[in-house]
């Protein structure tokens, strides 16, 4: 019996730990962010200056909004590859409407609605057409950027609007308006995911579609809904994008696509669905933004930046292993 004390020190078998990764990964982004902030601040004291924090938050706003939309989709075990081109389409629609003199409010509504419609199309094809999410949204990625090119005739339209300028530059304290909008979106999304029936059904659809169906949840309707949410948020992102770059352009915005998924996954949401958080992806988006900002501040050479980004992303995820 004395042997019990001498036995192998407590180590869980890996199958158990594997199941726990999901849990630890939820906080990967936060730990990564904190470490990053400490490192950058110690190397360059302007990193945490009011001005820089403010511009980081503003820079993160669009990514946060897209990542929130992506979170809903990924929670149902789907993926929205079209999120960036939907945003592009929204921006171009906004630009065309605005330059045709429809006025700011109407243009914004039209932009958001057209992005939402694209989301509905995605969701309908996936749920009713029963095609894999990946292929459908890859298809609409291509189709939406094509539409954006056709609508804009391949040319950017400059949009100078005092309201939009204020939206992109003004704010309350260190919080720019666009960051405030993103924060509100995140809070609403959190409530939706964890405090509404819809949210529970989203997670059930992602976690065990057959069980969800057996309990009478219409997984089709849920699928359509999450893509609509993602599309709508892409439309909102489009308006912030136009405000930020001062133009509606048919650019591809590929970086937003990969980053939105990266933020979500870094935020601890499983690509296999069934588990979601909103704080995670938001922190993930902040992490990715802070990373680029910090590397630029430190004057890391352009060639070394991708290498540094890659290493930091992997480390941020790896770090969590040493948590327990």
């Amino acid at each position, binding site marked *: 019996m004395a042997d019990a004390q001498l036995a192998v020190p407590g180590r869980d078998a890996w199958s158990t730990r594997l199941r726990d990764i999901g849990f630890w990964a939820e906080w990967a982004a936060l730990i990564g962010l904190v470490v990053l902030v400490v490192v950058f601040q110690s190397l360059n004291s302007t990193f945490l200056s009011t*001005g820089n924090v403010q511009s980081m938050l503003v820079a993160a706003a669009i990514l946060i909004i897209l990542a929130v939309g992506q979170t809903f989709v990924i929670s149902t075990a789907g993926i929205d590859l079209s999120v960036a081109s939907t945003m592009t389409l929204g921006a171009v629609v906004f630009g065309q409407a605005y330059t045709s003199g429809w006025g700011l409010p109407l243009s914004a509504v039209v932009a958001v609605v057209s992005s939402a419609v694209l989301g509905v199309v995605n969701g309908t094809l996936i749920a009713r057409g029963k095609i894999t999410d990946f292929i459908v949204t890859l298809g609409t990625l291509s189709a939406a950027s094509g539409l954006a090119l056709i609508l804009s005739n391949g040319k950017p339209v400059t949009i100078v609007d005092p309201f939009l300028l204020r939206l992109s*530059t003004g704010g309350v304290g260190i919080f720019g308006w666009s960051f405030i909008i993103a924060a509100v979106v995140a809070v609403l999304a959190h409530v939706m995911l964890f405090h509404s029936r819809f949210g529970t059904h989203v997670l059930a659809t992602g976690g065990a579609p057959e069980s969800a169906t057996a309990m009478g949840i219409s997984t089709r309707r849920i699928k359509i809904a999450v893509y609509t949410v993602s599309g709508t948020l892409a439309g909102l992102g489009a308006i912030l994008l136009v405000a930020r770059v001062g133009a509606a352009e048919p650019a591809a915005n590929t970086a937003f696509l990969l980053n939105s998924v990266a933020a979500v996954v870094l935020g601890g949401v499983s690509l296999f669905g069934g588990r979601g958080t909103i704080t995670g992806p938001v922190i993930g988006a902040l992490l990715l933004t802070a990373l680029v900002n910090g590397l630029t501040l430190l004057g890391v050479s*352009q060639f070394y930046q991708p290498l540094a980004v890659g290493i930091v992303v992997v480390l941020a995820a790896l770090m969590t292993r040493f948590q327990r």
Partner: protein
Amino acid sequence: GSGGSGGSGSGAKVAAVIKGLDNPFFQTMKQGIDDQARTGGVSTTVQAANAITDTTGQAEKLNALAGQPYSCFIVNPISGTNLVQGLAKIAALKKTIVNIDSPIDAKAAKTAKATPATYIGTDNVQAGKMAGEQMARLVGSGGDVAVIGGIAGDVTSGARITGFGQGIGPKLKIVQTVAADWDRQTALTAATNVLRAHPDLTGFFVANDDMGLGVARAIANAGKTGKVKVISVDGIKDALDAVKSGSLDATVAQYPYAIGLMGVEACQASAKGKTLPADVKAPVELVTKDNADKALAATPKPFGSYDDPFKALGK
């Protein structure tokens, strides 16, 4: 507006934000900036967007640098307006903005009160036009030509193609325009397909050299070297070699090296309190087999002489 009063007497501290990093054109531009900074004893940092389409990423980089103690900012914006926010911040701090390569949208700059002190520009329409005129000379009898552009909707690509259309005159006809995403392999595939679709094509205009080399390869694969002409834009070293060897018929060299170099000179001049000229044209040269050797010897600098108003101001 912007004043030229930002720099301290000892010399400018320069931050440059340029376009892409996976394209030799912008690396040569960086080389020009670095070389001039070294000879002039100016400290610089050069940042670039992740890709030539990364408008917001570039804006973020400028925003990050805007709050830093630089006296002069050299910017090469991806689009006319994407950097305006950062520029507004810089202008508010009364620091010098030097706009190179692609122009900042004038209206947007005015709204943001961030008009640059100078613009050192490449006229992409002009470059395209030179290519078009050369194409017309090469295939005097006329015929069909095709255009291989960068990413669909890209501004630079669009301007070059527009210029090409203006330059070719009435005898030549553009039968197809294909987007090849600034990628050599994609351009190769696209050109192969176009050659199939139009067996009696007489020439290609390609929006940059990297793709141009891919198109030249496609023509060689089809056994049509010499029969189908290729002209591209940029003037990177490999393209000059190709012009010399005959696989490329001409390239319109734009000398990003000189643009970068003049950008730093402008900063130096402004640091001395000089008023900068509003609009400076960067050199553009047509390189053909005849002058390829000269061009190669001089690269990355222009082989001809060109007008550099900053030289005088810097004295």
